[in-house]
C-alpha cells in the first residue's frame, strides 16, 4: 500500500487535470468577448469525489484485484447460461424458431411505432451480419461501411425517382451496385495492412458523404431525396382480366398500382404499410441470415477466417489473399446495399446526414458487442443497440458518452463479445 502511494497521488492529480478544465470551467460568449464561467458546486463535488475514488482504487489496487478475482466467475457469463456443447445445435434451432415466431407476432401485438422501430432493428441486423463478414470473419477493419449503405439507399431513391423502378427491382440492383463499389475500392486497398485499411475505408466513407452533399443536381445535396415509395407487393388478379398488379398500402395508389384496401375491399388502415414493411424486412433479414450462415460453412468462409488468423500461412498453402479479402469485402458491401434500399423505403426520405462516420461506428459496435464472428451475437446486439438508442433519446447528452465508454470497456473486459462465436463441429466418418 505504501509503495502505491506516489502513483495513487499521481493518478488523482491527473484525474483533476482531466476533469477540472473541461467540466469545471465553461467558455461562454458574453457579447463579443469570450469569458470563463464556473460550473455548479455539485460538479466540483463530483470531480473531487472522482479523484478520491481513483486515488483509493490505486492505493488499494492489490486488495481490489484480489477481491475481483474472488468474485469474478470463470469464463463468459452468458456462455455459462448456454446449454452444453452437444445440445447446443438443437437448442439453437429451438431458440431460433421461438424467436422467429415472436418476430412475426411483433406487429400484431404492438403499435405501429414499435413495428417501425423493429424494422430499423432488422435493418441493423442485416448491416451487422454484413459487416461481421468483413470485420468478424475476415478480420478487415472497415470503418467506411456506411458508404455502401448509402449506395444502396441512394440507388433505390434515384432509380425509383428517375426510372420509376419498383422496390423489388431496385433491391438487387442496390446490392449489386454496393458490391461493385466494394470491389472497386477493395481491389487497390486490400493489400494494405490492417490499420491503414481502417483509415482508407474511413476516408472513402467520408468521400462518399461529401460527394452526396455536393452533387446537388443528382442527389439533392444536403436536402437529400424525398418521396421514396414504399415497397409494393405483386399480386395475381383475376378480375377484370388475369394479370399481375402491384398492391400499395397507402390510401391512394399511384398510377398503375392498386391500393390494398380497395383490392380486398377492406377498410383503410394506415398502420398496415408499416406492418407490411416490417414483414418484408423480416423476410430480407432471414434471407441474409441463411445466406451468411451458409457462407461461413463454405470454403470461402473458412478461407476468410484462416486469413484473419494467419495470412502468411494462408499464402504458403496457396490461398490468394487478395481474392479472398476481396470476396469478403464485396459480399459485405452487398449486404449493406441491401440494407440501404430497405432503409430508403422505411424512411421515405434520405439525406447524407444519415450516412456519417458515426453510423459506421454503430454498426461496428454491433459486431463487436455481439462477438466478432458470432452470428447470433450480432443479431442480439443489433436489436439491443437499436432499442437502447430509442430508449435513451431523452438522455442525448450522456448517450454517446456512455456509448464510447462501453466500447472501450467491452474491449478491455470481454473482447470476444456477449455471445462468442462457436466453431462448427464437423462429423468425421471414421469417428
Amino acid at each position: 500500500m505504501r509503495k502505491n502511494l506516489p502513483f495513487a497521488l499521481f493518478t488523482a492529480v491527473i484525474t483533476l487535470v482531466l476533469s477540472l478544465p473541461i467540466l469545471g470551467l465553461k467558455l461562454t460568449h458574453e457579447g463579443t468577448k469570450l469569458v470563463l464561467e464556473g460550473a455548479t458546486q455539485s460538479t466540483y463535488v463530483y470531480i473531487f469525489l472522482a479523484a478520491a475514488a481513483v486515488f483509493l482504487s490505486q492505493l488499494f489496487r492489490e486488495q481490489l484485484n484480489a477481491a475481483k478475482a474472488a468474485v469474478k466467475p470463470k469464463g463468459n457469463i452468458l456462455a455459462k447460461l448456454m446449454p452444453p456443447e452437444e445440445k447446443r445445435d438443437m437448442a439453437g434451432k429451438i431458440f431460433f424458431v421461438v424467436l422467429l415466431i415472436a418476430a412475426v407476432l411483433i406487429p400484431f401485438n404492438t403499435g405501429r411505432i414499435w413495428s417501425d422501430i423493429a424494422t430499423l432493428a432488422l435493418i441493423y441486423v442485416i448491416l451487422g451480419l454484413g459487416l461481421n463478414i468483413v470485420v468478424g470473419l475476415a478480420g478487415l477493419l472497415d470503418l467506411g461501411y456506411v458508404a455502401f449503405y448509402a449506395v444502396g439507399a441512394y440507388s433505390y431513391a434515384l432509380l425509383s425517382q428517375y426510372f420509376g423502378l419498383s422496390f423489388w427491382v431496385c433491391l438487387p440492383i442496390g446490392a449489386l451496385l454496393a458490391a461493385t463499389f466494394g470491389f472497386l475500392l477493395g481491389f487497390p486497398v486490400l493489400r494494405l495492412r490492417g490499420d491503414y485499411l481502417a483509415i482508407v475505408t474511413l476516408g472513402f466513407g467520408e468521400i462518399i458523404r461529401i460527394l452526396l452533399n455536393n452533387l446537388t443536381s443528382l442527389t439533392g445535396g444536403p436536402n437529400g431525396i424525398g418521396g421514396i415509395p414504399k415497397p409494393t407487393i405483386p399480386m395475381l388478379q383475376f378480375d377484370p382480366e388475369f394479370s399481375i398488379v402491384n398492391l400499395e398500402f397507402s390510401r391512394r395508389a399511384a398510377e398503375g398500382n392498386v391500393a390494398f384496401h380497395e383490392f380486398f375491399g377492406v377498410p383503410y388502415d394506415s398502420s398496415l404499410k408499416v406492418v407490411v414493411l416490417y414483414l418484408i424486412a423480416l423476410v430480407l433479414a432471414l434471407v441474409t441470415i441463411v445466406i451468411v450462415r451458409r457462407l461461413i460453412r463454405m470454403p470461402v468462409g473458412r478461407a476468410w477466417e484462416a486469413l484473419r488468423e494467419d495470412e502468411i500461412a494462408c499464402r504458403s498453402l496457396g490461398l490468394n489473399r487478395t481474392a479472398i479479402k476481396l470476396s469478403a469485402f464485396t459480399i459485405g458491401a452487398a449486404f449493406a446495399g441491401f440494407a440501404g434500399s430497405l432503409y430508403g423505403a422505411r424512411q421515405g426520405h434520405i439525406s447524407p446526414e444519415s450516412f456519417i462516420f458515426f453510423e459506421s461506428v454503430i454498426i461496428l459496435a454491433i459486431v463487436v458487442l455481439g462477438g466478432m464472428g458470432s452470428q447470433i451475437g450480432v443479431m442480439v446486439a443489433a436489436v439491443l443497440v437499436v432499442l437502447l438508442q430509442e430508449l435513451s433519446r431523452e438522455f442525448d447528452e450522456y448517450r454517446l458518452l456512455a456509448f464510447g465508454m462501453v466500447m472501450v470497456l467491452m474491449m478491455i473486459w470481454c473482447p470476444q463479445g456477449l455471445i462468442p462465436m462457436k466453431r462448427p463441429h464437423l462429423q468425421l466418418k471414421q469417428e
Partner: protein
Amino acid sequence: MLSVRDLSMRFGGLLAVNGVSLDVNEREIISIIGPNGAGKTTVFNCISGFYKPTSGQITFKGKQVQGLPDFKISRLGMVRTFQHVRLFNRMTVIENLLVAQHRHVNTNLLSGLLKTPSYRKKESEAMEKAAYWLKKVDLLPLANREAGNLAYGQQRRLEIARCMVTGPDLLMLDEPAAGLNPKETRDLDELIVSLKHDYNVSILLIEHDMGLVMGISDRIYVVSQGTPLADGTPDEIRTNPDVIKAYLGED
C-alpha cells in the same frame, strides 16, 4: 525437381544469402544445416516466394519460379512449414486441413449456397482426405479441438498434415524437430521417411538436430554466414574438415 543456382538475398547492407546453390531430386530428403543466423530460413523464404531474391535462379519442375507470388509457387506443389508454428489457432484441427484444400474444393459461391451434388462431393472428399491425414499424424480424436489448444508437438504434426493435404511434390520443413522431446523426434523421423517412401514426396529440411539429419538425409548442404560451405552425403559431411571447423569454431 528443384534447382537453385547462385541464390543471393540482400537486406539493405546485409548480404544474408550469398551464392547458394542446391538441388533436390525426386524422392530425396535433403537437409540444409548451419549455425544460427547462417541464412537458412532466408533461403527457404526465397524459394517459397515470400522474399524476392536479389539474384539467382530457382527452377521447380522445369519452371522458373523466382519472382512469382508465394501463393502461386505453393500451387505448383511446393509447400512449407515455419520455424514458429503457424496454425489457424482459433479454428479447429479439421478446419485447418480443410482450408489447406481450398483450391481443390468447389469454391463456386452459388453451388455452395445451393449445396449442389458436385459441391457436396468435393466437400466430403476434402473431409475424407483431412481425416486420412489426421489419422496418419495421430490427431484424429482431436479433430474438433481448436488448433491453438493443442500441445506443441501436436501442433508441429498438424502443420505437416496441413501441408500434405495440399498434395505437394516438395515439402519444405523449417526446423520441424525444434522443441520436440526424444520420442516425438523419433516419430517425426518415421513420418518424414514414410512421406518419402509411401507418398513419393521430396523433402527439404532445415534442422539443428544432427541425429535426425544424419539419419534420414540423402544429401546435406552446409551453409555458414550466408555462403555455401560444403555439400555431400551425411558421411562426407561428418568428416569434412571445413564443416568440423565451422561447427567447433562456432561453439
